[in-house]
């Protein structure tokens, strides 16, 4: 594939990733919110203390919660997909630049990925 074709292919992949990520997150959030409606039907919600919410995100809690159709964890999955969507497009960009042999942008995209990894690390240590 020539350079122009690869650029158009990158644009297509990124555009599709973003659209899929947004709508996937939307439907999962909607499912989670409907289940939350049913679970919290008549309960007052204290927005100062956020009862029933685990203090920090935990992958195993998320997985267990989804298997049990836990409303909070399903809504959390929707939020997580939204967070992952822009990250995926950076990773796809890195792959395409590598395929194009555009070493400058492999380096620049790599730096962006390293910075985002630092933010993940900062989030986990605090």
């Amino acid at each position, binding site marked *: 594939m020539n350079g122009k074709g690869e650029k158009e292919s990158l644009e297509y992949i990124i555009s599709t990733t973003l659209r899929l990520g947004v709508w996937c997150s939307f439907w999962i959030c909607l499912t989670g919110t409907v289940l939350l409606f049913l679970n919290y039907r008549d309960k007052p919600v204290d927005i100062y203390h956020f009862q029933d919410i685990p203090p920090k995100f935990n992958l195993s809690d998320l997985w267990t919660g989804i298997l049990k159709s836990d409303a*909070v964890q399903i809504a*959390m999955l929707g939020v997580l997909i939204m967070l992952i969507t822009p990250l995926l497009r950076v990773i796809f960009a890195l792959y395409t630049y590598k395929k194009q042999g555009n070493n400058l942008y492999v380096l620049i995209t790599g730096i962006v990925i390293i910075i985002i990894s630092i*933010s993940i690390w900062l989030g986990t240590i*605090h």
Partner: protein
Amino acid sequence: MDYYSLAFILIAIAFFAGLIGSLTGLGGGIVIVPALTLILHIPMRYAVATSLISVIGTSSGAAAAYVKEGYTNMEIGMFLQIMTTLGAILGAVVIIWFELSVDILGIVFGLVLLITAVLTAQKKSDHLFTIDKDSLSYKLQLHGTYPLDGNKVTYGSANPITGSLVMCIAGFLSGLLGVGGGVFKVLAMDNIMRLPFKVSTTTSNFMIGVTAVSSAIIYFAGGYVIPYITAPVLIGIILGSYIGARILKHINVALLKNIFAILVSIIALYMIYNGYSGNFDTRHE
């Protein structure tokens, strides 16, 4: 308040934010944070975290269309993201680790809103910077083409270092206040880097998602993202921006932008007043 009422209010606020955001090109963050803090009295850090996630939603939705249409310059976006992500991480660290007073945050937010209102109301002039093959911009591949009346228009860029520094400030404000910072990103690309206006706005939109993610991760890992608040906000903002994008061509956007600028100015003054009066601290901390 029961969850029904809370969720419906959240969806309605986010729908309005998404609709207005996509019609004016400002994103929804500048509506979400004041609404969550001043109407629902949700603590500032939780509101900022929710807003950041919603900003990713609106940015990703719009960026998908602009990338496909060929307006977005992904190389310029990727290059500038180095500084926006660094700035965004710094903003999140300042608000979470150093426990910055939410009153000060409210005042800063109000000031940023005022600047946003002024910049939104200003008339933009378009320009086309020719490619200089000896420049740093050219070596960094910060040039491209965009479609115009069935043709491809070629453009170059200028001042990549100064542009990057302004981007760092835009990223910092995004991480600190939970906004996309699009106005500042466009300012850097349009006024400093001399990019065509359409390329500036679409590339800014493209960058907002990754910028917001780099600080949202810190809020997310810190437990500031509450699914039963964030999920309804995401639903509302995605629907709002989707419908906004579809009715855009039937609306007098210039008039809407001026009305929105006035509305944002009023919210800004209210945020500053609440911050100055110490209302955020006494209500939320």
